[in-house]
């Protein structure tokens, strides 16, 4: 099976169109399962009461913000190395979703911090580096929108994304390297998780829901980007519903 034939916008456009409903459906299912587990099944926290339940949105959003940046930098780097415009379009499509999840992580964290820490915001290492991640996403989108030539915009944005990828390990390890107010890592690869299984399952379901949502939305966005940038091409003109 020659997968590389999908690296052209013309062949990927219909494939993406067929993939979107599946991922959207998976996202809905996982979201419903996750919300059910997080509200109905997970127990009340001993210290924090019911307010801890924002963790089920906050942690998956933060995970996605870092993960999307790495994927975006990966596609951007691939586009730079192989000179493939579809890879660059994919990076461009992922950026707004990544920025939204970063903002969501910051806002939900802030809403959680007020009752728990007594402060809407503290300048500790993890919060600051997550804020830097938001600025990196916005810088990436601003740079791409300010350059007129789309291929030059792709390459410049790709370089910026790759330079900024050094921030993601800093966010991830910030709670280990610095004395921070933000709690340390509860879940890591090397040891058993330090939280109740039902809470963990709720978080994982919602993380999967956010992931499926990201894929569905990015595919929808990349289809729009393809139509905009390839509007002169014959295959776009031939699509039903496209005004010539």
């Amino acid at each position: 099976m020659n997968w590389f034939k999908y690296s052209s916008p013309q062949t990927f456009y219909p494939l993406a169109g067929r993939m979107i409903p599946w991922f959207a459906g998976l996202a809905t299912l996982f979201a419903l399962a996750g919300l059910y587990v997080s509200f109905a099944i997970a127990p009340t926290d001993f210290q924090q009461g019911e307010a801890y339940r924002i963790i089920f949105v906050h942690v998956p959003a933060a995970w996605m913000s870092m993960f999307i940046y790495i994927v975006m930098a990966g596609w951007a780097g691939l586009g730079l190395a192989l000179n493939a415009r579809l890879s660059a379009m994919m990076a461009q499509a992922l950026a707004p979703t990544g920025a939204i999840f970063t903002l969501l992580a910051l806002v939900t964290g802030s809403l959680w911090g007020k009752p728990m820490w007594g402060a809407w915001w503290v300048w500790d290492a993890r919060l600051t580096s997550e804020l830097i991640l938001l600025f990196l996403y916005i810088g990436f989108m601003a740079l791409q929108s300010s350059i007129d030539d789309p291929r030059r915009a792709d390459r410049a944005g790709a370089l910026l994304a790759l330079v900024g990828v050094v921030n993601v390990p800093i966010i991830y390890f910030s709670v280990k390297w610095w004395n921070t107010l933000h709690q340390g890592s509860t879940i890591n690869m090397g040891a058993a998780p330090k939280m109740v299984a039902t809470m963990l399952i709720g978080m994982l379901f919602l993380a999967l829901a956010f992931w499926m949502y990201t894929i569905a939305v990015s595919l929808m966005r990349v289809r729009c980007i393809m139509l905009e940038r390839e509007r002169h091409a014959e295959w776009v003109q031939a699509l039903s519903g496209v005004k010539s």
Partner: protein
Amino acid sequence: MSQAWLTILQRDLLLAFRRRSDVATTVFFFLMVASLFPLGIGPEASVLSNIAPGVLWVAALLAGMISLTRMFAADFTDGSLEQLLLAPQPLAVLVLAKILAHWLVCGLPVVLLAPFIGLQYALPSEALWVLVWSLLLGTPALSLIGAIGAALTLGVRGSGLLVALLVLPLYIPVLIFGAGAVAASQHGMSAQAHLSLLAACSLLSLVLAPLATAAALRISVE
């Protein structure tokens, strides 16, 4: 290769010397921003010495950012940047000469003036020393990282503000360690850790930033 490197360094320094007003604006911007804060906040010495590390470092950062576009813009408009790209020497090495020229012209004056501004903020002499050291170790990183932003936004409209948006997130670690060094020495603690991390930032950017800048220049000039 060193001959080419020295030639570019000399050329950039000569061009900067011919347009001294460009250089002077950077220095005067630093002085003015540093003078605005006491006027706005009030002359109480204890308050000023508390905010001094952060304010002075942010002023140095902003002054550096203002001057970033002049690193490559003039050469880009008159075509000599294209000739630089065609040179047989590795572009990263030649770019390093331009960055060094920029630092000598915009970063070093800030380092030399900082102790005098620090006196305005009632910083003790130990903290003044640390301020000079932190700026000396940190401003090269600012020039190096800023060069990447300057190269990415060549010829783009609104590039002055866009460069600021792009490089500020990357500047934040340098700012945190730089201001932290001075604050640590003000509280009687050793600034060793902060200064070491600052030097590490500068060394890391010394190795990686010219490569990224060279790649960005090739992207911008194509």
